């Protein structure tokens, strides 16, 4: 993505450079590249093992099936970069999906429903952000409360699953653009657009850079006169809006709103973001990395289905990968501190 410009040292570096700039990669990209390497290795291994793995259809479905997770990961990247965490995303996704299904059922036009979903996500993020920033509630606990609230509200909307028949919503998933082999659905496009926007905001806006600064050292960020409070609330709002979009994608994917949708999705999201190279302590990572992380997650899931192995291996593998990445991150941080 365009983000690479920021990190890769250009040969014509600063005019002030006395010695020629060495060709080297910024350390923050190392975990992302590691994730890319893992992804490629998994692709190759699967291709060698299964024979027909790297097909256009499978690659297309990898993107389309995980569209909602990509959107959630994009939002989560903001939160984790700022040094926080958002456990509410799975529940908020389920709630907005539920809300949409209900509203569509009682005949509200889809043009009203979709903005309502995004607004519901934004409000939930705002509540969490305010609790974190202004009432000193730990992000973990504040988003936990948000998760409880959203999950409970799902059941207030309806205890049963509600089928969605609206053609616009369903069309997001069922419209297949492209030929028979390579295809992309509107949901996939939305996911990619969200990732692109996230990458742009993080890399090319003052707000984005402030998020990095806060995650790097909130104390310094404040002393530098950056708008810390506003930005910290905003990352949760962004995560909430992403959960709203994910709700739309997921509803379109499953063609129903159901209260038990997305249980545990917050953990998958966090795992994908971390595997994608974002430091859990904040301040380092990329939206693009989170995309890679989601793809790694998707490949693991598909491979395990291909193997005919128990689906529980997905979670175990993700857990082990997460652990490996966290330990490596820890070692990197330790080494940096020793300098």
């Amino acid at each position, binding site marked *: 993505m365009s983000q690479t*410009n*920021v990190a890769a*040292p*250009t040969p014509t*570096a*600063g*005019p*002030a*450079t*006395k010695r020629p*700039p060495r060709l080297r990669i*910024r*350390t*923050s990209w190392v975990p992302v590249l590691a994730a890319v390497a893992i992804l490629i290795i998994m692709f190759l291994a699967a291709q060698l093992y299964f024979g027909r793995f790297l097909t256009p259809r499978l690659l297309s479905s990898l993107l389309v099936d995980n569209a909602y997770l990509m959107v959630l990961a994009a939002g989560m990247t903001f939160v984790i970069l700022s040094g926080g965490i958002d456990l509410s995303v799975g529940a908020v996704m389920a709630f907005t999906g539920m809300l949409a299904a209900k509203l569509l059922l009682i005949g509200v036009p889809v043009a009203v429903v979709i903005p309502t979903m995004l607004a519901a996500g934004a409000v939930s993020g705002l509540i969490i952000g305010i609790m974190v920033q202004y009432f000193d509630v730990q992000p973990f606990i504040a988003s936990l409360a948000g998760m409880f609230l959203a999950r409970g509200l799902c059941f207030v909307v309806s205890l049963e699953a509600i089928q969605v028949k609206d053609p616009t919503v369903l069309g997001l998933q069922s419209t297949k653009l492209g030929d028979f082999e390579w295809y992309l659905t509107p949901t996939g496009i939305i996911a990619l657009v969200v990732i692109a926007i996230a990458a*742009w905001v993080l*890399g*090319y*806006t*003052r707000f984005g*850079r*402030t998020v*990095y*600064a806060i*995650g*790097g*050292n909130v*104390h*310094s*960020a*404040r*002393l*530098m*006169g*950056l708008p810390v409070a506003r930005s910290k609330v905003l990352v949760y709002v962004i995560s909430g809006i992403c959960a709203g979009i994910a709700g739309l994608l997921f509803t379109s994917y499953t063609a129903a709103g159901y209260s038990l949708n997305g249980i545990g999705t917050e953990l998958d999201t966090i795992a994908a973001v971390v595997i994608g190279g974002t430091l859990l302590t904040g*301040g*380092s990572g990329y939206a693009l990395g989170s995309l890679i992380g989601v793809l790694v997650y998707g490949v693991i899931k598909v491979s395990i289905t291909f193997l005919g192995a128990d689906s529980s291996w997905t979670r175990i593998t993700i857990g082990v990968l997460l652990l490996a990445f966290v330990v490596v991150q820890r070692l990197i941080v330790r080494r*940096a501190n020793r*300098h």
Partner: protein
Amino acid sequence: MTLPSRKIYAVVDNNVVVEMKGISISFPGVKALDSVDFTLREGEIHSLLGENGAGKSTLIKALTGVYAIDSGSIQVLGVERRFANTADAQSAGIATVYQEINLCSNLSVGENVMLGHEVRGPFGIDWKATHAKASTYLNELGLHIEPRSPLSSHSLAIQQLVAISRAVVVDCRLLILDEPTSSLDRSEVEQLFAVMRRLKDRNVAILFVSHFLDQVFEISDRMTILRNGQLEGEYLVGAINRSTLISKMLGRELAELDLIGRAATRAIDRSGAPVLKVLGLGRKGSIEPVDLEVYDGEVLGLAGLLGSGRTELARIIYGADRADSGRVEVRGVPAHLSSPQQSAHHRIAFSSEDRREEGIIGDLTVAENLVLAVQAKRGWLQKVPRAQQQSIIDEYMVALGIKPNNPNALIRNLSGGNQQKVLLARWLATSPQLLILDEPTRGIDIGAKAEVQQLVARLAEDGMGVIFISSELDEVLRVSQRIAVLRDHRKVAEIDNAADVGVSSLVELIAKEGAA
């Protein structure tokens, strides 16, 4: 010493940038600043001096909007200002570079310089232009580094200078440098000074805080001395010499200091093996290799200004920080003291200078704090029996006169002096053979001070070895039999505390120039 005398007189009548008048700030139980006046002029480098607790930090924090002032006024360029937060102070043109560099080490040099002031184009931040601009600012200060390189890849010195470049971006009128040189080597200090002089030529006022008197005399035009929250005086750099300066910081005339009584010098039996022998113990960046011996019944004083390496030495001996050279013998037997537990095993105790962060366990009671070290030594499985706890508590509450005499009070509610006594008692209850005390009397009232001093003297008379660290030289003289003098992270002298040794002779040793 080369005094830039021409410049001094040049700045006398420069325009006033900041004028603080009658500033007072108090915290519960302490008057941190007591109607202090302070003036900074354009194009001058002004040093702020004082020992621990003198109020330097508080004054700087008042100036940067971290603390609100209780009374007094702050004028910037003739306009009265009230700072509610750091952003207010910044917008008034006051920029600060702290000892612990307040930048984001996860970002590039250029970003750190430009954060919040990036150049924006139609598609968001124009990184090329931003980095180019950062380069210009860095160049202006003579810094020729790649703005795209990560901040963490540079030395602390460079990071310090990057922080200063950032101050230039925000177009400051006053630059505050709080202990910028404490972790720099000589050539890095030169680089910093070169930058400071450039800024000075651009009419920026610079407030400089450093514990290194050589540097203060080298770079400053003017100095202000604070003591116990009060203004001691403002001097042009040529108008005061080093010894006078130190005695002003310590608050007494040299002659007067020498008259203070001290414990009778006792003869120490140095025929046997010392309780602690340290050979070439050091750690890069904090203390150069040191040899020391402490015998039974002896108090070894460590004298030196703050930042001379006295605390670092104590921490390394105790094993709170790891040494990277040297060895230790306890009673003639080689010992490995690389953790507090190992030291405790050798009956060596250490009381930190930072009572609040490294001493008391605030939310526990006096009794629990008192028994903690004994308990830690026994391990969690064997709780100190109630009766034994009670006897420890009874004994030390009375012996040290801890007030209030209520072992169930939370220790954080006690006064500093009483907290200190509890911490001493915590270690005495483990009956150590060597007690390392780092600033045991800092920030406590006169009465408690005397009690602590007497206690130390008594413990030594009863046969305990003590290492005693204090920035109050008369205190060191009063309790010690031998005194090691530290300067610039190394031991520069060790003397017997004989009758002819006085504060002035210590000051001389501490202040000695060029010996390094």
